[in-house]
């Protein structure tokens, strides 16, 4: 049985196709202005990648902020439930998921079946999210993909005191003008993201093993900063960015 999951996030649209418990393929595209079109586009492109036709897919679940705009989906389920299932599918031992995406970060506690026990999400503030790091990358004129490497070379991480993305950006600009090393600023940014997320994780109560998903999990600098804050090992899903879409496809196969 072939099923698909479409995850429309604030920055990227993700799609995954599953066949009888195996991943057939995944794909990530930019969401852009038109969330509805993005879902169709990423889904069609993925089908082309793996050589399937749309009518071969039996059930489609949409998730993410744009979940209700995917009109060809059979059902929509929140990203909380989908991320829980995606992480459980990749590693059934996982009991705690930290997902840091474009505009939100969330922590999810799950049981041995992938069922959500408790969760928390950031609210009304983009600090501690992928967008926060994106804005800072722009201010630093550094490609986001280089953040992890540069962070490793930091000798004294800067203190980023502001909790607001906009104010943190001006803080970064003043650090740059004071001649602070980029490496140290980047390390400071990772620490800042990690403190916000760890506070949220502690509120729910961290259970091990912990897995990190979402686009920010690709940045090992952020992952290591979180490990230090939470004082525990964090595994990164090999499918970090498409974890929600995979979870959605798994849930689709159970319908």
């Amino acid at each position, binding site marked *: 049985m072939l099923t698909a999951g479409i995850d429309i996030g604030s920055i990227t649209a993700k799609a995954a196709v599953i066949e009888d418990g195996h991943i057939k393929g995944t794909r990530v595209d930019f969401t852009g202005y038109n969330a509805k079109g993005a879902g169709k586009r990423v889904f069609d492109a993925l089908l082309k990648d793996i050589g399937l036709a749309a009518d071969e897919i039996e059930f489609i679940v949409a998730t993410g902020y744009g979940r209700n705009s995917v009109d060809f989906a059979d059902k929509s389920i*929140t990203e*909380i*439930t989908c991320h829980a299932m995606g992480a459980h599918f990749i590693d059934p031992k996982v009991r705690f998921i930290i997902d840091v995406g474009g505009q939100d970060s969330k922590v999810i506690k799950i049981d041995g079946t992938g069922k*959500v026990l*408790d*969760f928390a*999400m950031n*609210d009304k503030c983009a600090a501690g999210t992928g967008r926060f790091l994106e804005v800072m990358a722009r201010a630093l004129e550094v490609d986001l993909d280089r953040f992890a490497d540069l962070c490793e070379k930091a000798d004294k991480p800067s203190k980023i005191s502001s909790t607001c993305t906009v104010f943190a950006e001006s803080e970064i600009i003043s650090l740059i003008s004071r001649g602070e090393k980029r490496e140290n600023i980047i390390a400071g940014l990772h620490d800042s993201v990690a403190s916000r997320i760890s506070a949220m994780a502690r509120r729910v109560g961290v259970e091990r093993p912990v897995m990190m998903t979402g686009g920010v999990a690709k940045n090992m600098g952020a992952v290591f900063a979180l490990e230090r804050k939470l004082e525990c090992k964090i595994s990164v899903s090999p499918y970090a960015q498409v974890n929600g879409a995979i979870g959605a496809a798994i*849930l689709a196969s159970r319908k």
Partner: protein
Amino acid sequence: MKEIMTNYYINAKTARESGKKVAWITSGGPVEPLIAMDVIPVYPENHGAMIGASKMGVDLCEKAEEMGYSSDLCSYARADIACATVNGGPIGGLPEPDFLVCCNNICGTVLKWYEVVARYYDVPLFILDTPFVHGEFTDAAKKYVIRQINEYIEFLEHVCGKKIDSDRMEEVARLSVEAQRLWQRVLDSATHKPSPMTAFDAFFHLALIVTLRGTRETVDYYKALADEMDERIAAGISMVPNEKYRLIWDNLPIWYKTRWLSEKFASYDACLVADTYTAAWSGVLHLIDEGNFLETMAVAYSNVYINISLDMMIGTLEKMIEKYDADGLVMHSNRSCKPYSFGQYDLARMVSEKIGIPTLIIEADMVDERSFSQSQVETRIDAFMETLKGY
């Protein structure tokens, strides 16, 4: 209800012409002596709720911020203070007060808020200070509050220029207690499965027990409402058509989003069967002795839900969850109401540990829509309901 409230506000606004006095009073303040003295009580907080429900909160809050009040200040206070200066809002502003009665059993903000109002209208202010109840309500605290009740009566006699009629006071006390009992009966109807009402109905029907307890019409209204609930139960009518999940609401309503929230929960076959907020107006009934109303009232008013310690709150919450057989708790973390929202994470943890039901926390504000983000709240509710349904 609409008719009673309209008449009430017309009477309050024409009090001058009819030779009656108007007092502004806090929502948790002892209103009964005012009724007994034939004073019309007016509630800035009820007014704040009306402003919120009519979606006029943002404009007025912004106006208050222009005046120099912080956006962190309670949105009832901001909306109401701003409203007084422009006679805006859904009813063109409240009637001017002859004097003010402020009881701090609900929060500390009211002290400064009422001081501002007292200066603005240049009218006398009576403050009733109810000490926070950490565990037991000590004899000293009891004496302290009772003494203030006596001062309160003296204050009323002075500003009204007449003695209190003790027979009339007894009558008002009797009606107040009766109204509280009937209000509790209305709320209790939701223990029935399926429930004939939801907390959203309680938010609506609440107005009279807040503003006019101690009057005959309030008693009559709740008597009819309680009977209607019994009839609905007998006829098998439920408010949420296929009630499957029973939830408890904590904190004030999100006044400008009650319809959306009500429909959202109903779409999951979830009924908000009870709430800690509307239950507060009958929650201390057991502490009142009709035969010794003024003294026992002092103790009762001091022991309202948000003037007690977390340990006492969890006791109340636990009983409520059991009584209504709830499957989950929905907490509104209300940016405006600090004393109500403080400790919610601890309460959520205690509920999870002691009773094993999950909690959803919604971050919003009762009046200021700028603190409400619909898509974020929607995702939280969807995810919470998915968790309850057990995907």
